[in-house]
């Protein structure tokens, strides 16, 4: 399944017609929204905690280059090897090189969205490295030949019947059952064999602490702990925005993350990785590698407003609350990160040429901003991206693909509109004419009319009535 954001509109149309998909998403999103809101019964508490979250992230971003160097130094002091990747390919090449240097043959993966970003699974497969996802949701989508449809719950688009059929096909000896516990058991037994035989574990990073060189990994299934402790090599991949200054910053972000994401006071596992196995220790990997991935983030970082995009802690609350995501699901976006956060981050990762439809796919209702645990002003950033994608040529370069959606017709329409609005006499003359010729409205061709009648202007507009009444 290829990721094609340029096909967004068609994908959305197809998804809207898929009643099973819509039911799966509506049900799942309702469930997640309720779980979250039960965790934040007091809006004042959420407001205060999210202010802390916001300031921790803004503080870290304001010193990003320094903190990254500090993180590198402290990781190295702890025995973690650090690699820098400017783009997806460099990141993948680092992984491949580390695997080859250690004669690795099999990878188990904890959940990592940045590795989805770099297309790591396909890349490794092309280089004959076996690579098994071990997060349950990731395992399901990998086995289905799909990509995640949600950043926290990758297989949320599937219902239990679909998963039961899949497991019946792919797990040797499995029989069809809709009992969730049995299904989970089957997959866990299958995965256990892979943990025994893998020599490389790859995971993401939720937070990295610069002052101590600590990598934090939040998870519920224990597969993260297994991937980081059983194989002899652990490779952690992280986007450069995941760094924070101090360990003391973590409690705010952790609480915000688990409560916002899955409605849990805390996750089942919280791993803090600070070195490979030391002498005398009985477990842990022999080597730990950290790959710092930029892949377009520097572009967002360079602009003070767009930089707020990088505050994201990947909780997924914005998608759970988004009326667009709820209806079209995650795959329609054609990007690794779907939903509101996807609409604001993908243009930096991929350029506005292919992603120009994403910023327009929002009514700017603000449901996302309302629940964002680090207060990213998503609607404002969507509006800003619309400015960038409609920019005339010849202006300073801010974004890859800026000006991609600009058309002469639309630019001209807004110029004429603006001219009329600042010339009241002309405006009201046109307004009267619109009232006179209002009967034409239902005859016009417009996408508005898919399932809506055209509104008809009043026979006499307000200003005329008001003036008549006054005189």
């Amino acid at each position: 399944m290829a990721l094609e954001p340029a096909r967004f509109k068609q994908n959305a149309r197809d998804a809207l017609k898929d009643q099973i998909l819509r039911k799966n998403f509506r049900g799942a999103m309702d469930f997640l929204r309720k779980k979250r809101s039960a965790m934040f019964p007091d809006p004042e508490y959420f407001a205060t905690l999210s202010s802390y979250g916001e300031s921790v992230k803004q503080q870290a971003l304001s010193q990003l280059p320094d903190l990254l160097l500090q993180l590198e130094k402290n990781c190295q002091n702890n025995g973690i090897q650090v690699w820098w990747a400017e783009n997806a390919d460099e990141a993948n090449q680092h992984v491949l090189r580390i695997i080859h240097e250690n004669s690795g043959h099999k990878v188990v993966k904890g959940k990592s969205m940045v590795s989805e970003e770099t297309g790591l699974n396909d890349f490794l497969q092309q280089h004959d490295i076996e690579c098994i996802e071990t997060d349950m949701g990731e395992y399901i989508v990998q086995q289905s030949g799909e990509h995640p449809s949600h950043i926290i719950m990758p297989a949320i688009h599937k219902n239990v019947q679909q998963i039961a059929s899949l497991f019946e096909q792919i797990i040797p000896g499995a029989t069809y059952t809709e009992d969730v516990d049995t299904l989970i058991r089957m997959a866990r037994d299958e995965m256990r064999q892979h943990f025994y035989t893998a020599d490389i574990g790859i995971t993401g990073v939720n937070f990295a602490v610069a002052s101590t060189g600590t990598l934090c990994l939040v998870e519920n299934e224990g597969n993260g702990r297994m991937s980081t402790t059983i194989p002899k090599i652990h490779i952690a991949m992280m986007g450069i925005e995941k760094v924070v200054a101090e360990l003391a910053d973590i409690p705010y972000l952790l609480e915000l993350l688990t409560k916002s994401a899955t409605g849990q006071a805390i996750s089942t596992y919280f791993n803090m990785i600070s070195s490979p196995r030391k002498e005398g220790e009985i477990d842990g990997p022999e080597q730990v590698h950290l790959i710092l991935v930029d892949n377009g983030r520097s572009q967002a970082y360079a602009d003070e407003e767009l930089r707020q995009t990088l505050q994201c802690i990947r909780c997924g609350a914005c998608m759970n609350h988004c009326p667009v995501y709820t209806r079209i699901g995650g795959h329609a976006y054609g990007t690794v990160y779907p939903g509101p956060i996807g609409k604001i981050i993908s243009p930096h990762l991929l350029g506005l040429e292919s992603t120009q439809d994403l910023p327009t796919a929002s009514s700017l209702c603000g449901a996302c901003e309302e629940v964002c645990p680090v207060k990213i002003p998503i609607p404002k950033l969507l509006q800003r991206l619309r400015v960038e994608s409609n920019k005339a040529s010849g202006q300073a370069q801010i974004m890859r693909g800026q000006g991609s959606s600009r058309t002469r017709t639309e630019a001209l329409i807004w110029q004429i509109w603006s001219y009329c609005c600042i010339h009241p006499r002309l405006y009201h003359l046109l307004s009267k004419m619109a009232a006179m010729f209002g009967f034409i409205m239902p005859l016009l061709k417009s996408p508005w009319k898919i399932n809506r009648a055209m509104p008809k202007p009043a026979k006499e507009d307000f200003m005329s009535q008001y003036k008549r009444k006054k005189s």
Partner: protein
Amino acid sequence: MNIPIKIYPAKPAKVYLYVTCLVNHFSPTTGMDAINLLEREGIEVEVITEQTCCGQPAYNSGYVEQSKQVALSQLELFSLPIPIVILSGSCGGMMRKHYPDLLADHPKVHEFSQRVYELSEFLLHVCQIKLQDNGTATTVTLHTSCSGRREMGIHTTGLKLLSQLNQVTVVEHEYSHECCGFGGTFSVKQADISASMVEDKSKYLSQSNCDSFVSTDWGCMLNINGALQYQSSPLRGEHLATFLNRRLKKAEEVL
């Protein structure tokens, strides 16, 4: 969401009314009803007839320069230091929240933005209105625009006004917090998604089985009413101002 706490002033002798372009074109009655409600409170209402549009359509579409010129022209029309009562949470959000960003260098922009009030908010918090219901028993559901809810924090004021009416039972429709799918140019640029949203919204409003539904925003209502009309449903939304004004009229006034 950062909605600053609003300190409401005492009831003024006079206000400006900003009717919005949609009321001007599509529902002049709403404007007249709003004037009536304010005048009942002993407030003189002035409509500056040169007003056109708040500039939001171009702003949301990414044409900031064009929007800025329009915003500036509107700002300069309201010179007296009196409240500007606006008939839409969405245009209100534009003027209160986005004008200070858009016209950051303008010396009067903050003073102007502070003076903007949405009608239901103004009646409740500034006028401290006490509504006398003279209508017969009825049920109603309220749709609040997203900008009203999340940019101005006024999703409760309409409900509080309705709850003052003795004969009116307010029913909350399912997913009342969810967007109707209008979003200005969103409704044509992403027409399929917008259509699916308004389909759901009109379904939930209908399923509330209320005699009527009201809103404080004509943007949402053009969208929702258009869908209801397309579905040949008898239900139509009307502006809260119109609904309230009708409830207040005594039998003899109706005749």
